[in-house]
């Protein structure tokens, strides 16, 4: 026996290949691109995918990166017996050259069978798992988006105070889609009505913010809108801002954060006036608001989820936002 030093484990092979990692990154980039609908991202991902896939496949094909075959002298015994050609009889012993023990490269049937079983199993698993996974994840990201919502005639929003308007964001989904907005009529500016419409979703973690002031429940009224679901309007008085009951976030009347954990100003709704009625078209996120009412200068961003920074250095942590 050859004396060996050190642990008697299998010999250390070369470091594992890093190509699969690049392959995985390419796949991720391509999928994210698909989700975001950005074809340039998909293209970048596809290039990575192909490049790394090629070098990975080449490494596998050429055996590069596989553990080296150890040339060990075979010890005599039953182990080596199968490598020798059995002699038919003693008579042939002289006639036949004695085979040296040597590694004969073989591809046994059992290896083929186990590899093909694994491969076939993998293919079947992939065929089943791929559509199921897409079905599990896809619907949450596809077909999102806001519908236009009629929240009643402009005349129902008198100038000055905030009105609490609740409406169905998606009438086909029923009451579960009831949302609340704080609507303030700023009066007519340059011949056009100006409204401040704040979402009631706290931008900390999404709880409903409440008016810091009087909510005149007794004067609540219901407005019929053409699509069917009702809109409820509750006037308020002397609102000094908004507060969140969950974790104490506070906002001023423009939705700017004044205290507590929120990371930006309250989200707002875009609107248009059609036939004297207020129509909410979509919502957007706000970094900060300078000024008041009709003169407000709003730093607007694409709609982001609560707790997501839209400006400042932390915004770099949230480069992608799923489609709303």
């Amino acid at each position, binding site marked *: 026996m050859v004396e060996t030093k050190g642990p008697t484990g299998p010999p250390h092979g070369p470091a594992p290949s890093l190509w699969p990692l690049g392959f995985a990154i390419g796949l991720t980039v391509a999928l994210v691109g698909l*989700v975001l609908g950005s074809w340039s991202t998909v293209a970048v991902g596809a290039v990575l995918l192909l490049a790394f896939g090629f070098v990975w496949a080449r490494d596998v094909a050429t055996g590069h990166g596989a553990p080296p075959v150890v040339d060990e002298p075979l010890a005599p015994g039953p182990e080596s017996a199968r490598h020798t050609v059995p002699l038919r009889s003693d008579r042939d012993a002289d006639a036949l050259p004695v085979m040296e023990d040597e590694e004969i490269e073989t591809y046994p049937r059992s290896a083929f069978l186990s590899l093909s079983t694994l491969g076939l199993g993998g293919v079947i698993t992939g065929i089943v798992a791929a559509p199921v996974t897409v079905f599990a*994840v896809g*619907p*949450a*990201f596809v077909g*999102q*988006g806001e519908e236009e919502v009629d929240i009643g005639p402009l005349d129902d929003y008198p100038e000055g105070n905030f009105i609490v308007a609740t409406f169905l*964001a*998606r009438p086909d*989904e*029923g*009451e*579960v*889609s009831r949302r609340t907005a704080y609507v303030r009529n700023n009066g007519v500016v340059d011949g056009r009505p100006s409204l401040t419409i704040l979402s009631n979703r706290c931008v*900390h*973690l*999404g*709880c*409903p913010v409440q008016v810091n002031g009087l909510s005149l429940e007794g004067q609540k009224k219901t407005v019929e809108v053409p699509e069917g679901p009702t809109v409820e309007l509750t006037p308020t008085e002397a609102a000094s801002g908004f507060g969140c009951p*969950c974790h104490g976030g506070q906002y001023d009347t423009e939705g700017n954060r004044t205290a507590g954990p929120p990371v930006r100003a309250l989200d707002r709704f875009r609107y248009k006036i059609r036939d004297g009625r207020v129509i909410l078209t979509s919502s957007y996120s706000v970094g900060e608001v300078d000024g008041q009412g009709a003169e407000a200068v709003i730093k607007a961003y694409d709609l*982001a*989820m*609560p*707790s*997501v920074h839209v400006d400042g250095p932390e915004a770099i*942590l*949230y*480069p*992608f*936002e*799923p*489609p*709303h």
Partner: protein
Amino acid sequence: MATTAPRRRRRQSKLQQAVDIPLDWLEERSGLVGATKYFLFRKVPRDSSWWHTLGSATLTAFLVQAGTGLILAFYYKPDPDKAYESIQHITNDLTLGWLVRGMHRWGASVFIILMFFHMARVFLFGAYKYPRELNWIVGVLILVTGMLEGFTGYLLPWDQTSYWATVVGININASAPFLGPFIAQFLRGGAEIGTDTLSRFYALHMLAVPGALFGLIGLHLYLVIRLGVSSPPWSSEGAGRDRAEVKPTGRAGLTRGRRV
């Protein structure tokens, strides 16, 4: 009297056969009887104590959750228009519904609390050390999975508390950098909490997460049986050593004896 003794013995042996024959039949074909005996009558350190029962207590709490949860699913309807009413129906109208729902509701907290007690016991006894590190890791996975069970189950009553708690919980996920918003959107099943959120939480709560828990608990128990129970840190018996001789005191079998 003399005649009854053999008859009783005969009756006993017949009874014994009535038990043994089906068991032998089962054992010969499955080996399950031996496996059960191996599981139940394995050796544990003689100074294991009540502290060592916290794991079984946690398992019992989990089985109570599984049982009561299954029955609650007979009556619960995971639909935004019906979920709250069906919970009211279970609590107020159905026979003993209030009790089973209460068991499930409070049992959930018991399960989580017992997991922490069990974890504290293992930590303070040093029972997570070699060769039981893997079982600690599996245990942590059970803890996380169990909390996921709590998170998904909390939405199901569909009242104001559960709705807003889930809004907050999902948005905490959204606050994670880079992928957070995507995780949140996946959990919600869309941009807003709606019909799909309730049914997918129900599916996770009823099938996916409990399935994972059963698997992880099986692995956890397998490792407990394979590695054995560790002695408490105050144990005077070194691992692998023979038992200390015990000198009996008092009446045999009734008192513990004193080490010599």
